[in-house]
């Protein structure tokens, strides 16, 4: 069953070490982008709070 697992999603020609590094990079990028999303969301609500205060 395709699970999107570590092995299955191995990028081309990567050694285990390279693959782990690539995964770490991918997850780090995703977390940073997710953090940006949260900051924007909270920021705009704060704008609303300050406007109504």
């Amino acid at each position, binding site marked *: 069953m395709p*699970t999107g697992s570590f092995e299955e999603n191995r990028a081309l020609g990567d050694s285990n070490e390279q693959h782990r590094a690539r995964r770490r990079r991918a997850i780090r990028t*995703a977390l940073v982008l997710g953090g940006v999303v949260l900051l924007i969301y909270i920021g705009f609500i704060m704008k609303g709070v300050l406007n*109504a205060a």
Partner: protein
Amino acid sequence: MSHETTLNQDEHHADHPTGLARWLFTTNHKEIGTLYLVFSLVMFLLGGAMAMVIRAELFVPGLQMVNPEFFNQMTTMHALVMIFGAVMPAFVGLANWMVPLMIGAPDMALPRMNNWSFWILPFAFTILLLPLVLGLFGIGSGGPASGWTLYPPLSLQGGTNIAFVIFAIHLMGVSSIMGAINIIVTILNMRAPGMTLLRMPLFVWTWLITGFLLIAVMPVLAGAVTMLLTDRFFDTSFFNAAGGGDPVMYQHIFWFFGHPEVYIMILPAFGIVSEILPTFSRKPLFGYTSMVYATASIAFLSFIVWAHHMFTVGMPLGGSLFFMYATMVIAVPTGVKVFNWVSTMWRGSMTFETPMLFSLGFIVLFTIGGFSGLMLAIVPADFQYHDTYFVVAHFHYVLVTGAVFAIMAGVYYWLPKWTGYMYNEKLGKIHFWTSTISVNVLFFPQHYLGLAGMPRRIPDYAVQFAEFNMISSIGGFAFGLAQLIFVYIVWQAARGGERATGQVWEGARGLEWTVPSPAPLHTFDTPPKVDDSVTAHADRLV
């Protein structure tokens, strides 16, 4: 890659589930792409059915088919379904299918999140549509009827259906954000060796930029509707003037999301057309690098033009001038793109298969939408055009003959790669010509209706508008029927027919054409060789 690893992968390949489990638990980018595209088609037909109700009611003056409240629900839901259910998921579906293939990646970087991104959508739309469906059976107050922009105070004065809409919008936002993160991370991390950023196909570039747009603006929409929710149910006063809030602030926040959203729906379309034109012109894309910069410029400018949607609320003269000129500046990078597309075709060995026809239709008709956009950008003129059918005509030229035509072009272009079978070319051309003629009969008269003063979102109108409305409705019914041809063509190509080769199109270049048709479930077990010879803009440096 070690031999052991290869064996593990093969074991995974052999153990592929069938039936519902295959689609429910899939983490494969091709299957998830197919899910997105099928979902988008269903939503396109549903939103289209709502449009038919609108055009049927407006066929002649007076109220004949539906009551005004239901008419308003139709205009609201038609927009929400088409924007969030049809156009956006279609582009995400195309990205899921094609981006990994184009950059030589085995799959998306975060496949499990990819599965989740899709499966949130059916739940979101069930919640969105629930009040409308229940309303048809006399339960509750029906669907939202305040327009897709959900402007307060109107949107807060209806029933509790606003809670359903807000929850659905949050879910759609989560889905879009996760999809965007996945696409960005895939492009930045999973490119095959040799696939440098400036070797990436234009479709990948436009999606990379679109991904950043989504991340920047979807939380803005979420923030706006969260505040609507608390205003409606928790006695806050974000947008309530009596409590110290400001309804105009909602409009500012909404359009800070809304205008980049327009480009979220059109930048991937630019990418698709930039893939198709070189193939059927048998020439490299003209001005590849300038296309990348033009796309990035359009994305940047989309953040500083939002108030052109709300000139009539009143703002300082300096603000009006800024937003007017900033809007007009968008014509420059857009002009670069149109110039490059025309130059790509110039002296090319052109043939006119269905994807090329839809791309040409896109260039001509989207440009009409762009020109009417320039007219709307002029502040004093906008005071006349605002909230009239001129605006309706403008954004339908951009979104139907722009975004939808590009999606159609992309589907015809890549369908043989997905199914392994050629579609029926004759029927494809019939679909193109019936769609192109009818869509102009549908929307072009609406320019005149708007200039003559017919307001949008009304179920009845003065008799002076009768002729153009009748013509427009006839075009609408014809356009709706024409799309059934499309459904049949796709269904037929999925079932069988003439076998497609791996290359499919004579002039096609790029990694996606180096794999067999249909593309195997797992592609690129060995690294593809990437150099300028496989990219569609190979001799750009010559």
